[in-house]
């Protein structure tokens, strides 16, 4: 799984800037650097967890990879082809292989379409199946995600949040994709329903050999579902490694603070814990600090951190970090 042949997706120095427009003639006055030069590989069959706080660029990363936003610069190599350079027709041919599950199960389903037509739309669009076979496929997909075939004629508002997320998952699976970007798929759900959806995603991965990029702010859930984890802060990946390395031996001070801030459902552990409380807020991505993006909140920052952007180093085997001080 970790050799180069197993790479399904390779992201190289990816940047996505959103222009800031001001004034009557909408002059461009600056950029929001949502994603500011990130590189990583996704191996076939794995789940790569992408974790970070709001505004760190994790969702933008997922959307840029699927070309829902055009890239500013950088490469996205999926199955040997650079998605950023493909024309729309070539991209359309690749779409069935890469799908997305969205965060908000209320906003991501068209309220005027029946569940059946929501799920069959991608199949019709790509001309895979028609008529009776299409209907059978929709029923099969509904059963696969734990719904009933009779649900096909109903509308999204008749379902609860967890069930709607299942509909979104059925739609993503409709074209037998290899790669799915899961963008906070459980953030809008209640705890007991979150576990149902995560278990379903794990079952589907085992059954179909799916590869996930799992985006979340929930560190405990990321640890549960991922084999490897990338931590983002202010548009950059600050640490990347196996789940064991990142959670048991975090190298970046931001990862360390993030992990120490997560509450554990155990009063005995909570009583003994020493938290690293970060000072202040995340700086604006329109005006990121010079040097290391984390230096304004880092408890260990020295002068070097304020002047130079830390290099992306493989400090331990297959465990990368961007920090001057980590060793």
């Amino acid at each position, binding site marked *: 799984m970790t050799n180069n042949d197993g790479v399904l997706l390779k992201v190289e120095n990816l940047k996505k800037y959103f222009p800031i427009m001001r004034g009557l003639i909408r002059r461009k006055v600056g950029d929001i650097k949502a994603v500011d030069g990130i590189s990583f590989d996704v191996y076939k069959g794995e789940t790569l967890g992408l974790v970070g706080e709001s505004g760190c660029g994790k969702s933008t990363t997922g959307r840029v990879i699927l070309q829902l936003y055009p890239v500013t610069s950088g490469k996205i190599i999926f199955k040997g082809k650079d998605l950023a350079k493909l024309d729309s027709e070539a991209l359309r041919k690749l779409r069935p292989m890469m799908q997305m599950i969205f965060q908000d199960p209320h906003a991501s389903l068209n309220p005027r379409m029946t569940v059946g037509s929501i799920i069959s739309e991608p199949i019709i669009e790509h001309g895979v199946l028609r008529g009776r076979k299409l209907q059978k496929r929709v029923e099969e997909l509904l059963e696969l995600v734990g719904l009933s075939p009779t649900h096909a004629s109903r509308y999204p508002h008749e379902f609860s949040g967890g069930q709607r997320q299942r509909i979104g998952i059925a739609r993503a699976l409709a074209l037998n994709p290899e790669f799915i970007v899961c963008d906070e798929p459980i953030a809008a759900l209640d705890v007991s329903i979150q576990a*149902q959806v995560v*278990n379903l995603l794990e079952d589907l991965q085992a059954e179909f050999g799916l590869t996930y990029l799992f985006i979340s702010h929930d560190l405990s859930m990321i640890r549960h579902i991922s084999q490897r984890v990338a931590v983002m802060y202010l548009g950059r990946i600050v640490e990347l490694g196996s789940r064991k390395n990142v959670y048991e031996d975090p190298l970046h001070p931001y990862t360390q*603070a993030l992990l120490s*801030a997560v*509450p*554990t*459902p155990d009063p*005995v552990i909570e009583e003994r814990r020493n*938290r690293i409380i970060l000072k202040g807020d*995340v700086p604006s991505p329109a005006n990121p600090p010079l040097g290391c993006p984390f230096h304004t909140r880092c408890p260990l920052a020295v002068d070097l951190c304020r002047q130079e952007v830390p290099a992306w180093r493989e400090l331990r085997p297959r465990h990368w970090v961007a920090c001057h001080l980590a060793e």
Partner: protein
Amino acid sequence: MLAKNGANVLEVHNLKTRFHTHDGTLHAVNGVSFELKEGELLGIVGESGCGKSVTVMSLLKLIPIPPGEIVDGRAFFHGRDLIAMSANEIRHVRGHQIGFIFQDPMTSLNPVMTIGQQIMEPIRAHLGKSRDEARDDAIRLLGMIGIPMAEARLDDYPHQFSGGMRQRVMIAIALSCIPQVLIADEPTTALDVTIQAQIIDLIKQLRRELGMSIIWITHDLGIVAGIADRVIVMYGGYIVEQAPVKELYANPKHPYTQGLLGSLPRLEERMAERLTNIKGQPPNLFSEPTSCPFAPRCPYVFERCLEENPALWPISSNHKVACWLEIKE
């Protein structure tokens, strides 16, 4: 932790709140009784729609009436029944003796008032202080909750603050009259985890300094584990379990509590464990429950559960559970 065996500051008896909606009557809170002790931090946990917010909103009459209706119940605060109070009387309690922090710091501050005005408002209204005195108090409060350059920021508007800072301002408003009871309704849910850690740390510190009693409502069992002395678990408008924090996590008795704890991934879990999930959906509250509200989802359900709703039953001096499996008659 301050687990004092103090007197009861607040005693709630058989609170019932309903909402009369177009789709029928919603049974939001169905006979809830609990007490809050002096200096205690009481956690109320449950999922969306379990009635945890409506319970405390009813106490302070913050629910809209109609469509809401407090059908029954009494809530004694310093010997006076909050439920029976007139609108005028309760206004003197709210924000003065009982402070309230809401979930969403974006919508609970007034966008067209400076934060200084918003902090000074309860100080002037309840404590009758002059504008200058109130301003001094506000500066002191902002300093206390960790807002740098407090004096300069007093004349800023809410949109000039970040989410975490806005929640700090909400806390300053809630604490402006030094209340005996602070009710925090999901105060950190809208915040990122590092900012959440800051706010929890701040409230712990303020609690040590001011010694107030706190009711902390959340869906996050992790937060409760770290701050509460005692925990109430709610489901379908009922209290299903109630125990001191360590007892509850070490020895959960209600199948719902067990399910909730099992459905959480933990940072210290062994790898590749499967999450236990609670099958099915949260209850529909439009019909008055005659059976145990958790019965349709419960793995241990038997006949009695479908015939009769179990009441809270003490299984030890401080641990109560509403489950037929535990009730020994």
